[in-house]
């Protein structure tokens, strides 16, 4: 299990969510994981200013972060050429887990989508996956961000897609909400020729 451990000490983690209570919950989870440098902001304006002022190591951003929203903020971070935070891992937190919403997050340049309400296990596993699974970056005229063609072989700790699992059936555009595992699989759909 040693390879399934992540060390968050001294990493600067920024939580961007308009809800101070939810931010406190996530803050406490991260403390439990061993993180000791955690920042919070409440708006996208504050977030963009923070990213301009200092180096952030990982961003946990609400998809509805006012006033711009997490998707637009993600695109702005990825597209700003002279931004030293351009390639930071971005995990978008959202309650809207319809397939179209998850695809939009992926196409905006998010590394991962975390479904709200968030549990300690789901947060740890997604942070571990981003940390332990290197992905190339793509710089194209219409996209800058992590390569969307990747495959999830299973999360550290055994959560997620496993060998032998059925492939995700891609639903219609405005289908029902997806479970976290389906969201993870959707991020890998491109390589499987489904997107």
């Amino acid at each position: 299990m040693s390879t399934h451990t992540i060390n968050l000490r001294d990493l600067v983690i920024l939580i961007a969510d308009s809800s101070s209570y939810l931010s406190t919950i996530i803050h406490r989870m991260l403390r439990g994981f061993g993180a000791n440098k955690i920042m919070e902001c409440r708006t996208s304006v504050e977030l963009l200013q923070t990213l301009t002022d200092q180096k952030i190591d990982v961003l946990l951003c609400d998809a509805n972060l006012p006033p711009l929203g997490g998707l637009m903020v993600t695109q702005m971070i990825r597209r700003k050429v002279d931004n030293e935070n351009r390639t930071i891992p971005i995990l978008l937190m959202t309650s809207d887990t319809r397939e179209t919403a998850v695809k939009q997050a992926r196409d905006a340049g998010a590394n991962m989508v975390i479904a709200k309400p968030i549990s300690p296990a789901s947060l740890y596993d997604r942070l571990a996956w981003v940390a332990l699974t290197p992905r190339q970056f793509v710089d194209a005229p219409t996209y800058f961000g992590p390569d969307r063609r990747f495959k999830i072989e299973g999360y550290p700790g055994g959560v997620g897609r496993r060998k032998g699992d059925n492939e995700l059936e891609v639903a219609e555009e405005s289908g029902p909400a997806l479970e976290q595992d389906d969201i993870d699989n959707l991020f890998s759909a491109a390589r499987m020729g489904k997107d």
Partner: protein
Amino acid sequence: MADDNNKNDDNVRIFDVETTFQKYARRPGGVPRDRAIKYATTRVEELKPDFDDWLDKELQALAEAVRQAEDGGQARGWIDAINNHARQLRDVGTTMDAELLTYIAGSLCEVLDEMAAGAKFNRESISCHVDALFLARQRPYRTLKPDQVPELIAGLRRVLQHVSTSPG
């Protein structure tokens, strides 16, 4: 940080990135997964005594936003105000062992989404969700799961169905 290693064509560049996050997170000395989750759960549990206060404030604020919406007609701003409180309740509920609260608040968000998308304004459909949230706040209901109150869930589904099929 970035290392060019591949160029598919003139317009697309694919390159390796090792972020500080990846580099640092792989260092030895981290908290093993099971222990990290246990610690995190304990720290979240410590918040639970404050959850009642937070919940009461959110519900009161939600009820007030609904009352103002009823007084002020159908101005667009009230959807955002109610939605903001409903989203917070939805996003926090299950994490604090109040799964029913998350379900009802999520249903209210769907009702509001339908209205924002053009469905007919229907104050009863909002009020009944608020009533259900106050019910779910009470002790006997707090830790129930949605499938333990099938009548309530069926009723909320009918309300959502009614709103989604009522063009504005």
